[in-house]
């Protein structure tokens, strides 16, 4: 009897430490910030906070700076997700060939993934420096431009380095996941297709792509979530919004409202709006992209 009770209890005891940490550091802060988002939160003296209901949410949705931040963020996702997918697939296919130095190249393509965002962002800032940057120097040397481009000073041009960085940093990881997917495709299918007279392009279109579908769907969803959370590169390159709050991403604006302007209520509301946006987009993607893979 005692032993049976213990046996029932055991799994929960093992779960308890992890769940306690999860509650303390994830669930509790999430619930707390949901509460904060309904208030004009007073950080020095929270008991003096004024309850506003949904006012924070209404204000933010109508704020042109927020609308622009959402546009910048969606554009970043629209550019970097396909960018990473296409280049990642190319790299994965190359890495999937039997060739000398395969391990070396896998390492090389994965290097950007494991480097720190801060370091590579600073590196891109140097590359795109308007007066001393390598990019302007190169463009001038080959005669494509006659005056240096002021990348960081222009609200639209500054998106070029930020988006390129997003693609460059993510290709390695995307390629590794795709490589795993590619290696899961049975070779018999390629042999059978070859016997049926399919050339390389046909084999790619009719064997590789359909069988890679679950991997691709997974990547689209995960990369989109990552792209909507773009933060470090924006914060460092544009100082979070420079010039004139026109280059914000949702998270840099959230940070500014919270820690610069000390509007904790607005900041919390922005993070919940972003969460809802990600939730809806992910649901739509999964709903429309996922299909059973048919080996028959």
């Amino acid at each position, binding site marked *: 009897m005692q032993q049976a009770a213990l046996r029932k209890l*055991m799994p929960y005891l093992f779960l308890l430490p992890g769940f306690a940490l999860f509650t303390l550091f994830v669930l509790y802060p999430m619930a707390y910030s949901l509460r904060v988002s309904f208030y004009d939160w007073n950080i020095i003296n929270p008991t003096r906070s004024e309850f506003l209901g949904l006012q924070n949410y209404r204000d933010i949705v109508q704020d042109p700076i927020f609308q622009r931040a959402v546009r910048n963020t969606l554009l970043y996702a629209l550019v970097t997700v396909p960018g990473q997918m296409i280049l990642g697939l190319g790299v994965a296919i190359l890495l999937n060939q039997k060739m000398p130095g395969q391990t070396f190249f896998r390492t090389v393509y994965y290097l950007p993934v494991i480097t720190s965002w801060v370091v590579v962002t600073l590196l891109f800032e140097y590359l*795109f420096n308007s007066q001393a940057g390598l990019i302007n120097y190169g463009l001038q040397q080959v005669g494509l431009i006659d005056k240096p481009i002021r990348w960081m000073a222009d609200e639209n041009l500054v998106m070029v380095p930020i988006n390129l960085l997003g693609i460059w940093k993510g290709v390695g990881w995307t390629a590794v996941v795709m490589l795993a997917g590619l290696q899961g495709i049975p070779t018999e299918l390629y042999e059978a297709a070859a016997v049926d007279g399919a050339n390389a392009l046909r084999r790619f279109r009719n064997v590789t792509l359909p069988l890679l579908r679950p991997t691709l769907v997974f990547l689209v969803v995960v990369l989109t979530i990552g792209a909507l959370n773009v933060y470090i590169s924006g914060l460092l390159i544009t100082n979070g919004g*420079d010039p004139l709050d026109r280059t914000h991403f949702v998270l840099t604006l959230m940070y500014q409202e919270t820690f610069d302007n000390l509007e904790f209520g607005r900041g919390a509301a922005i993070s919940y709006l972003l969460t809802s946006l990600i939730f809806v987009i992910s649901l739509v993607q999964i709903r429309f992209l996922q299909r059973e893979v048919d080996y028959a």
Partner: protein
Amino acid sequence: MLRRFALLITALALMVALVPALPAAAQDTVTVKYWHTLSDSETEKLDELISMFEEANPGIKIEASRYAQNANEFRQVIMTALASGDPPDVIRMDIAWVSEFADLGALVAMDEVIPDFDTYKEQFFPAPLQTNYFAGHYYGLPVSTNTQVLLYNRAQFEEAGLEVPTTINEFVDAACALSNGEERYGYAMGGTYFWAPAPLFFAQGGSITDPEVTTADGYLNSEASVAAFETLVNLYNDGCMSPNLLGGGIATDAGHATDLYSMIIDGPWMVSIYEANYPDFEVNFALVPAGETGTSSVVGGEDAVLMDGSKHQEEALKWMQFLASDEAQIVMADAGVIPTLSGLTGNEALPEYFQIFMEQLETANLRTPSPHWNEMDNAINNAYQYMLRGEKTPQEALDDAAAEIDAMLSGD
């Protein structure tokens, strides 16, 4: 059964291990936490000060934390510490922030904890002392003061046969004469935040609000203020001022030391920065070029403030008074920190180049002492950006900024 028990014990042990260690038993020494944003060479001097202080005050330990010199970041760190109820004991903060933090109720008034404060305060220069004044009380001790002056590249001026400018008109002419298209610029400004244009703005008679800080209308958008910004915008449009102020270019200090920028306007700390990074570079100072009302500049500096949440106020105050003392200020002067004690004027231990900064300080203006200063700075920064981008004329941009600031001020 036994094995299960072993597992259970392991699980329990793991849980115990995750409980944070209990705080160590209280010790006899009191630790005073001191936050600052000193530079490399200044931090070396601070270490000297800490040893001096700890030797003279056994039982007090100073735990100094250095933060990035990015103003916004430091403000956020302080705010977050206040929000979490765990502020340090003493902070060395920008003189422009004291009213904001005093207004938040985060600071202890010096006149309430220092006996004979009325006589004690007499030893400081009036302007740095004044930056601690808010709503009838003094909320800090001035520990450093500074201002910005003109730095010029003597060789380039001689080569071009130009005199060092003493008036705004001469300055504009020299800046344009020393610029050559896209590589070399006669003048470079560090950014668009108010501190950067402030010396040339004040020298041309610009102002932000009335002396009582009740309105910006008629001040920030006055004829003189608009003309001051027009001068700067024209310099930029004519290619006589580096585009680096809009971001993504070569920083003013590096550009000046590498002969790319003939003139910059900056503070006394540049001497030790150049000594460390460009030991061969010759630094030349001159007064900020004068407008119709004479030369002017902007007063900077730091005040040491005692945090309301400090649990060791007595010891913290001792440390603050040490920082404001003769001996401490002479040590810091070695790293380019100008003293706030009037008794040190002409002291032989002070570096010679302080002379020009002391002279400039005589006519330098304070940034508006207001709890809203941070937002006001932001409004002026945005106005300047609109002008440089050609999206608004200086008059329009400053009219809008004045209206924005008046809305903040009337909210009180």
